[in-house]
């Protein structure tokens, strides 16, 4: 039987609004997602262990292919990867974490990924509506991440790519709060047109 996603029962019609080049929200379910806790030295070693470059400053992102690491705080790092990779990644990190007194927790099922795509000004304006951070391109360029809020919901966000005037923001959100977040984004983005694709 198929796994049931966080937004499986959300009706796309309820979120839709018309526009010439609408924003598109998609759920990217079951992204492999591990939360790593520990001191800076441990986190640096962990990145090396899974074949990623450094992400020393809070807000930095390290990436190779689908595997990416978001430095969300001085003592926390989240690893994201293709669905299913969480098992192997956790097994590789467990000895290091055990040795160095850190922690690794599998949040694959605890959260889901929502990706908001569209013309860059529309995406930034929609994000700014609910998020208190400075999301101007100067302050939050592609390749940056942050732990913040959108409206009343905690989110981890990452600006992914800007090409030909378009931007994608990925949001990691708790499973039970994903519907609320999707509804809020749809309302915030309705002036640009909005589509939810399940």
């Amino acid at each position, binding site marked *: *039987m198929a*796994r*049931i*996603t966080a937004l499986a*029962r959300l009706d796309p019609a309820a979120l839709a609004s018309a526009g010439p080049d609408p924003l598109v929200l998609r759920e990217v*379910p*079951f992204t492999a997602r591990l*939360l790593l*806790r*520990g001191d800076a030295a441990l986190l640096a070693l962990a990145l090396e262990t899974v074949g990623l470059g450094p992400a020393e400053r809070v807000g930095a992102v390290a990436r190779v292919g689908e595997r990416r690491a978001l430095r969300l705080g001085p003592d926390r790092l989240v690893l994201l990867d293709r669905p299913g990779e969480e098992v192997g990644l956790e097994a590789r990190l467990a000895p290091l*974490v*055990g040795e160095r*007194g*850190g*922690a*690794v*927790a*599998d*949040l*694959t*099922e*605890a*959260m889901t990924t929502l990706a908001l795509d569209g013309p860059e000004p529309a995406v930034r304006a929609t994000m700014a509506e609910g998020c208190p951070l400075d999301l101007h391109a100067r302050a939050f360029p592609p390749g940056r991440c942050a732990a913040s809020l959108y*409206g*009343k*919901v905690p989110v981890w966000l990452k600006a992914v790519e800007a090409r030909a005037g378009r931007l994608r923001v990925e949001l990691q959100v*708790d*499973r*039970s*709060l994903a*519907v*609320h977040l999707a*509804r*809020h984004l749809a*309302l*915030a983005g309705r002036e640009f047109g909005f589509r939810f694709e399940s």
Partner: protein
Amino acid sequence: MSFGALAGVHRGDLFRPIRTTPLHAWAAARGAVFEDVGNWKRPTAFPRPGERLEAAAAREARAVRTSVGLADASTLGAFDVQGPDAATFLDRIWTIDVAGLPVGRCRYGLVLKDDGTVLDDGVVCRLAPNRFLLSTTTGGAARLHAWLERWAQTEWPNLRVWITPLAEGRAVIAVQGPRSRLLLRRAASGVDLSPEAFPHMAWRDGEIAGVAARILRVSFTGETGFELQVPASRAEEVIDTLLRLGPDLEPTPYGLEAMHLLRLEKGYILVGHETDGTVTPRDLGLERLLAPGKDFLGKRSLDLAEHRRPDRPRLVGLLPLDPTALPAVGGQLVERAEPGAPSLGRVSSAGRSPTLGRTIALGLVRGDRARPGERLTVFAADRPPVEVELRAPCFLDPEGARLRG
């Protein structure tokens, strides 16, 4: 300035986040009536067409006592606690002996505030020497998380311990009742469910309906019972399989109302009902949960003169003399129902026990009046007074034989 300017978009659907569990749609499809618990929606009961809520809850509770019931307990708080000092940390927070807990076992205990009053309760499972799983109350989960982080980050930063909330990732299916093992055996693999191999207050990993599950042998009903922790995305198929495998056992979905009746029959406390921020473990008669020979938050305060007063409230069972009269929760316990009568305590929980066929209640009564056999009156505005007799706060199977079956 208008209220609209303050509320912004947080109106209607967006007024506040409504959190639903991985089994919400499953429960709704079975006719569940929901209630709010914090931001969560939880099933109150699963009434059949034409069945009243109270009758549904009684039917569900009876099914758990006589056969097997299934409940969605996914909203319970869950925390992963890891690190070389995890045992030391939890030993200071929980009233029970955590450091001495063997891997594979769980233990129920309390968390006290520094003033010695109960903050929350829950089960601690030892997953590995340096790794624990906490299962806590639904309503207290955010408060407990803040409490754990405060002590870890600001009071004991020298302890190497990391706390991760995990409730979102798993669904919890409570399988409770004398036939719970029989039902689980049909769906389980890779785990020995016999009482010898899997005693009360232990946990094991296995598979249920082909889905990886962490199984806790715990009970909030007083019956032999298990809690299945399965990945959120596969919870529906697990519970559907359990229902399909056991038509002869009549597995019955049960809601919060039945759960309250079951725990009331056993006298199990519910944080927020039997506790109100002023109640100590001694008031609740839970001295057995205070591990001797170790220190924990709130321990010293338990010896304050205030907490040692003989007239501190004491948890008691209340049996109405008229077995159909239901005492009002929040009602005052008085000598005689007359204006100005001094309060000797309050009713904390009450219900119609389907097992005993009568009304029962729990209450907190002045310790110097909390004698078995004492008769008091429950007084509540606009309700007829109810005469009750005091007794020990457990109405069913005080030896716990059903629990260990």
